[in-house]
C-alpha cells in the first residue's frame, strides 16, 4: 500500500519541490497551502505522515495548532516539523506538543527522505514481533535498531529519530569519543556545533527523567562525546 504524505506549507515552490521528491520516492503526496484546507482534508481522512511548516501565511503558530489537532486525533501519526525557524525555543515547543522530529529547511532532501522512511520503518516494525537480531545491549541500555526504540533499565525512552541516531552512534562503540562531525553524519543532519550540544542536552534530560543518576554521555571538552558503560555505572544498577 502506498503511504500517503501530507505537506502543509505556504511557500508553493518548496511545497512542490518536496512533493516532487517524495513522489519520485513512491509516496502519495497531498499538498495544502494553509491550515483551513489542511484541517478540512484531515477531518475526512488522516494521512500516514504529515510534514508541517510552523508559520502558515498569516498564522504565526499555525503549524503548532495543526500539530495539536492532529495529535489529538491520532497518537501514533508521525508528524515532522520542517521550518525555517532554527531557534531553540521553537524546537522545544514543537517537540513538546508531540512532533516526531523537528527539521530546519536547510536539511538536504536525502536526509529528509531518510527520516521519512525511517519513521515508516519504525511504524512497520511495531506491527511485527520483537526479534532479537536487531537488539544490542550495552549495560542497562537496550537499542532496537529496527523499531528505533531505546530502553534504559528496561524503561523506554521516548526519542526522536535524530536523537535515536545520536544515541545509537554513541552507544555503538562505548568509550570511543565521537566528535561532532561524526555525530552529524551518523544522525543525518548537517548543523552547527551548538545544535549538537542542544541535542545532547535534550537527550540527557530525557534519560534523567527516567533515571536521575544517569551519567553515561560524557562531554570530552574540545573533542566531542562518548558513551560510558563502565563497570561502576552498570554495577550500581544491576
Amino acid at each position, binding site marked *: 500500500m502506498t503511504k500517503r504524505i501530507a505537506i502543509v506549507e505556504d511557500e508553493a515552490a518548496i511545497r512542490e519541490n518536496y512533493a516532487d*521528491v517524495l513522489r519520485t520516492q513512491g509516496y502519495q503526496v497531498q499538498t495544502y497551502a494553509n491550515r483551513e484546507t489542511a484541517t478540512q482534508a484531515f477531518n475526512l481522512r488522516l494521512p500516514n505522515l504529515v510534514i508541517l511548516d510552523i508559520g502558515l501565511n498569516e498564522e504565526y503558530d499555525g503549524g503548532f495548532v495543526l500539530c495539536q489537532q492532529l495529535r489529538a486525533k491520532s497518537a501514533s501519526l508521525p508528524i515532522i516539523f520542517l521550518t525555517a525557524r*532554527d*531557534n531553540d525555543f521553537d524546537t522545544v515547543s514543537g517537540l513538546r506538543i508531540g512532533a516526531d522530529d523537528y527539521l530546519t*529547511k536547510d536539511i538536504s532532501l536525502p536526509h529528509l527522505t531518510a527520516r521519512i522512511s525511517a519513521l515508516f520503518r519504525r511504524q512497520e516494525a511495531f506491527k511485527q514481533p520483537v526479534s532479537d537480531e536487531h537488539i544490542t545491549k550495552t549495560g542497562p541500555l537496550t537499542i532496537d535498531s529496527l523499531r528505533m526504540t531505546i530502553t534504559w533499565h528496561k524503561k523506554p525512552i521516548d526519542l526522536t529519530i535524530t536523537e535515536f541516531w545520536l544515541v545509537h552512534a554513541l552507544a555503538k562503540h562505548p568509550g570511543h569519543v565521537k566528535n561532532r562531525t561524526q555525530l552529524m553524519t551518523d544522525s543525518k543532519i548537517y548543523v552547527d556545533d551548538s545544535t549538537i550540544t542542544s541535542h545532547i542536552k535534550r537527550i540527557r534530560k530525557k534519560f534523567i527523567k527516567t533515571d536521575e543518576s544517569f551519567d553515561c554521555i560524557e*562531554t570530552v571538552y*574540545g573533542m566531542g562525546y562518548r558513551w560510558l558503560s563502565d563497570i561502576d555505572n552498570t554495577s550500581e544498577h544491576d
Partner: protein
Amino acid sequence: MTSRKAFQLRFGLRAKLLLLSSFLFIIPWFGYQYVWEMEKYLRFGQEQTLVGTARALATALHERENLFKNQASFLPNVEQGKDLYGYQLTEAIQLDGLHNDWPYFSQRAHFYNHQQQLFANEPLSLNFKASVGKYDKYLYLFFQVVDNQVIFRGKNSRSIINNDHLALSFSDQNNNLNRFIISNKQAGWISAFSITENTDDIPKPAPHIQGHWLITPQGYNIELRVPLKTLGDKIAFAFFDINQPAGEVVSAIGSADPSKLESLGTILVPSPEIERIVKGMRYTNSSIWVVDQHHRVLASAGSLKSASGVWHEKEKPASESEKSSLWYQFKQQVLLPLYYKVLTKPPTDFIDKLYDARHLSGEHIVSALTGKATSQWRLTTDKQALVLSAAYPIFINNKVQGAVIVEETTNGIRTLRNRALEKLFTVILAIMILGALTFIIFATRISSRIRHLSTQAEQAIDTQGRIIGEMSVSTSHDEIGDLSRSFTTAVNRLSEYNHYLESMSSRLSHELRTPIAVVKTSLENLALQEKQRLSTDENIDKSIDENNGINPYIERAQTGINTLNLILTNMSEATRLEQMLTRTDKVVFDLKTVVSGCIAGYRQVYSDFTFDLNTEISKLTFRGSPEHIVQLLDKVINNAVEFSQDKVITLELKHRNGHAELLINNNGILLPELLSESLFDSMVSLRNNKKQEQPHLGLGLYIARLICQFHQGEISAENHHSPDGVTIKIVLPTKV
C-alpha cells in the same frame, strides 16, 4: 584634545549664576550713593541754618554801640602785651602765689622781657610772665617774675619804691587814673598803696587790692585781684628792679608806662552784656562766639563738642526688653562692628586748638570783619571731626565792629547718615543673603539635574556605543525636562536601531532561508531527475556519465548554495546563542580540565600547530556553562590560529583575586589601534581579502564576548611586541 580640555578652568553653571548675581551688589552701591547725596543736602541745610543763626545773633548786636563802648574795640589796632585780655575763668582763684589754679597758664601768659622795658640804667636782670583772668566780680592778675636778687622794703623804710615793686595803674569807670604800688616788706600778703601824681603825697594803703607775694628760686610770684567795679578799660603794670637794699631803681619792665593815663594799655574782659544776649542763643546746639574787630572774643557760649547741629537727636537708649532680644544682641555684636569697619563713628572726643580762648583766627572771620558773611568747612586740628563755621559781621555806624561766629560739627548729620546706612546695610544684607541662598539653591538644583541627566546619558551608552541601560523620563515641564525627554527618546530610538542591527543577521538569515530552501530543493530535485534520466538513458550518452553522472552546473550551484546556507547558519548563531544562554543553567566544573581538554582537541584538529598551556594551578573550580566556555575557546583559538604566523599558540591560565584569567597569545600581525575596542562587536572582521576557506562574518569574537558577558567576565585584546602579536585576555570571576 581631551587632555587640553582638562587644563581649562571649569566654569560651571553655578559659578556663572553667581557671577551674574554679583550685579546685585550694585543695589547697595546705589543705596550708599543715595545716602551720601542725602548727607550732602543735609549739610547744605545745616550751612544755611548756621548762617541764619549767625545772622540772627548779629542782628541783635547791630548798632548797639554801648555794648562795645568800653571795650577796646574802637582801637584801630591792638598791641600784644600792652592791650590785655582777661580770660574768663571758670573757677575761683586762690590767692597763694601759685599758678596751679590758672587754667592753661603757660599758653595764656604773656612773656615780658627787654622789649617791654621802660628804662634800664643797668643791664637788665629782670623778666616776667603775666596772665589776666576774670572771675565773678574780680579781675585776677598773676605775675611770675624772674629776678636775680629780690629786695624787699626795709623794715623801717618809709619809702615804698626803693625796693623791688610792682606799679599797677588803671582807669576807673569815669576814666580817672588810679595808681597803685605793691611793695612788700616780706613775702606773704601783699601791701598795696595808692599813690597820686604828686610824689610828695603819702601813699595810702589800698586794701581792696588783695594778693600774695611768693618767693621762688628764680625770683618771686605775685598773684592779686582787683574788684571790677573800680576798673575801667585801661590798664598798665610795670616791675621795678632794685639790686641792693634801699637802692635806686635800676630798670623797669611793664605792659605800658603806668604813670600817665594816656600811655595805659587797654584791657578787655568778656562782656557780660553781650554774653547775656548770646546765652539766649545757646539752645541752638551750636557753639557761638562774638569777636571784636581784633579777633578778640567778647563772648562765647556753647561748646563745639556738644554742638552737633539741629540734626542731632539723642539716641533713645534701648529698653530692657529690646536689649534682651536676640536681634538686638546680634546687631550689637555682629552687624554693627561689621558696619563700622566701613563707616566711621563721629568722634565725641576731638581736639580743636584752632581757637584760643581770647583770639580767633580763620579766613571766615577775616572775611566777616570786612563785612562779608561767610561759611566754611574745616577739619578740627586733630582731623577727627568736620566743623562747619559761619561768620556774620556786626555793624555799628556802618562799620564792622565785630563778628558773630557760629560753629557746629557735622556729627549730627554723620550720626544720622550712619543710622540710615546701618538700616540700609541690614536690609541689603538680608536681601543679598536671601537672594544668594535662592540663587545657590536654584543653581544647585539645575546643575544637579543636568549632572544627573548627563550621568544617565553616559550610563545609557557604554564605551563601545552600545545602549546598555534605559533612561528614566523626567516629568518636569521645563527645558531640562524637555532635554531629558528628548535624550530619552534619542536613546530609545538608538536602542531600537541597535537592536535592529544586532538582530539583523538573524532576521536576514531567517528571511533568506525560505528562498534558499526553494533553490536548494529545486537543485536537488534537478540532480535527482538528472540521475534518473541518466540511469534510464545510460546507453545514450556516456560522456556525461564519465563526469560523475551529474551536470557540473548543478553541482556547482549546489556547492554555492551550501556555502550560502552555511553563512546563514553562522549569521544566526549569535542570536541562537543569546537565546540559549538565557535558558542555560550554570554548573560547577573544573575550568582547568575544560581548558586542557580543549587544548588536547585542538592539537588533533590543528595538527601542524603547537599549543602550550602554562599554568601553575591544578584545579580551578568555576561555576558556569562548560559547553559555552568550550565554544568561547573554540572561537578565540580559531581566531588565534588564523592570525598566527609561527604556528605557536601560547595559553596561560591564572587564578588571582577571585578571577580566572586566561591569556591566549599568538604571534603575528598587530591589531590596528582603532579596532581594538570594537573587535568584539558584531560583524567586525580584520581579515584581509585573501582567499578564505570558510566564510567569515566577524561574529566569532562577538560570540566570545557574549559568552564572557554571560559569565560576568570580560574579554579584551592587546598587542604585544618582540615578537609582535596579539594577546586575547579573558577574565572571568570565579565567585559568582
